[in-house]
């Protein structure tokens, strides 16, 4: 399971303040803790509050790389911010560009820009592509799958390896009115998207969004994650510091024969 640690994000108050004060210690501790907890990548998101997002992401990247070599997931909807982050990234470690829709009303070419940056980042550069286009986030299964198909075919045309694509079918908060059908739709979409190519693209989700605003967030997140793993999800942006969640991942993967059983199977991510 490719787990992307979500904690270095300007949405969290301590990270927001650390960025504003250029306080390295807070960021480096989060990087180390998430690495020790089993993160395969560390997400890096400056949030919306930073005054100069481009210099903020560069500072975050440099600060993290001073303390660990865990690959980074540069998280921004703005190509210029991603490009700025990439300048500071040690691409030997690998990098994910997180994330791009298929297209936007304001930028028809946004996907191509991300793809090109990922290609330039070398053989370990990947992208997360959202099943979303200029019409917004689809509510049904079929539109998600058809957008994913366009993503895969566009990437293939440009010679981009499908194993360097992470498709994110976009999970919506379950608490939003009428959204309770969405988790089931996401599972069906994962089922189908895995068959779009061979080898299949990776499937990822921004898990915490599912429980946004709900009570009992931790159990909602981990149960859904286990369900999605059983359908072929092989990556997720998560709170790797949530021990119960990590135990759920280890157990689901073991039950799906993705990890060899041992009596200490819960320890595989720590």
């Amino acid at each position, binding site marked *: 399971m490719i787990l992307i640690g979500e904690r270095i994000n300007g949405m969290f108050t301590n990270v927001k303040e650390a960025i504003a004060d250029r306080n390295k210690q807070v960021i480096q501790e989060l990087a180390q803790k998430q690495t020790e907890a089993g993160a395969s990548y560390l997400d890096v998101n400056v949030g919306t509050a930073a005054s100069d997002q481009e210099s903020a992401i560069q500072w975050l990247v440099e600060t993290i790389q001073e303390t660990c070599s865990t690959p980074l997931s540069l998280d921004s909807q703005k190509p210029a911010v991603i490009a700025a982050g990439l300048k500071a990234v040690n691409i030997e470690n690998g990098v994910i560009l997180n994330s791009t829709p298929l297209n936007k009303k304001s930028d028809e070419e946004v996907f191509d820009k991300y793809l090109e940056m990922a290609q330039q980042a070398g053989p370990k550069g990947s992208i997360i592509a959202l099943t979303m286009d200029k019409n917004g986030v689809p509510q049904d299964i079929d539109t998600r799958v058809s957008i994913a198909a366009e993503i895969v075919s566009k990437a293939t045309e440009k010679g981009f390896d499908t194993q360097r694509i992470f498709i994110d079918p976009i999970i919506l908060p379950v608490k939003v009115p009428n959204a309770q059908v969405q988790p089931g739709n996401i599972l069906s979409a994962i089922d189908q998207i895995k068959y779009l190519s061979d080898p299949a693209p990776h499937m990822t989700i921004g898990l915490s969004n599912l429980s946004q605003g709900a009570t009992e967030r931790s159990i909602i997140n981990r149960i859904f994650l286990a369900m999605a793993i059983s359908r072929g999800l092989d990556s997720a942006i998560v709170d790797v510091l949530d021990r119960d969640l990590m135990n759920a991942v280890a157990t689901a993967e073991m039950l799906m024969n993705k990890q*060899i059983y*041992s009596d200490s199977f819960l320890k*595989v991510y720590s």
Partner: protein
Amino acid sequence: MPLPEITDSFTGSVNRITLGATKENGGTRTNTVTIGGARNVVYGGSFEDASEKPVIAMDVLDTRPRDWPDALVQAYDDVMDSPGDWAKKCVEEFGAELICIKFDGIHPDKDDKDADHAVKVTEEVLKSVGVPLILWGSRNDEKDNQVMPKVSGAAKGEKCLIGTISEINYKSLTAIAMADGHYLISEAPIDINIAKQVNILASDMGFPLERIVTFQATGALGYGIEYAYSIQERQRLAALTGDKMMAMPAICDVGYESWRAKEAKLEDAPGWGSIADRGPMWEATTAVCLLQAGVDIIRMRHPRSVAVVKNFINKVWS
């Protein structure tokens, strides 16, 4: 019909480890041996993805074996009472890349030799050859726990491969191997779940996973080789798909297992061909088969089978 191009690629790799310490690194070995590093299955992927060349470790016993068939005795009769000379012969005449001292003589049911004997044998072999050593206990847990820590101490700093630890007996050898700077062999009885568990147990004691070599138990041709092959393959695929608890290089004990087979040693079997050839053939066939499952170190006995297997390795890994 055009052949489809099959290029499975993997995200993980097998740990690469270097056995033996030369003078510059605090030991007395004249050379080191590096194994592991595979990023694909044998014959799969590009040449750069292949492992380091697998190596042959030749067995030297601490006391003269009483149950070896004639074909083996003939090869070593003049040196079987002197482990140092025996090791020297294996290295100088037969090209052994590693020497595996097998401490059968300390087993209570065999010669029940003590720790002083085992230390003396270790020192003698360290003096007589410059290749890295494997130090392998008698498989009697109680006796091994008494003797192997002393053996480990006698070779301190030499970066030997020492074993074996198992699910029920791992603490004392793991601790001593860590203190003396050696590498560990983790053993499981052809059981992938236990194999992983032993690695986790050693790791929990603080022993680095990068210093472990796995021994899944071996079955010879006709005696369970398909189980041994499958388990080696499963371990390798787990390593290549990123399971760090299974990303170790592997060792097989081909010599002992092959020469237990009746086909290798039964003299009165006219339909089976020459007794002089059968044993070496049995051993070589078993080794070549397991090498294709990705095994990194092969323990062997007969010089003729060693020659055949070396030839195979040189052809495939070049």
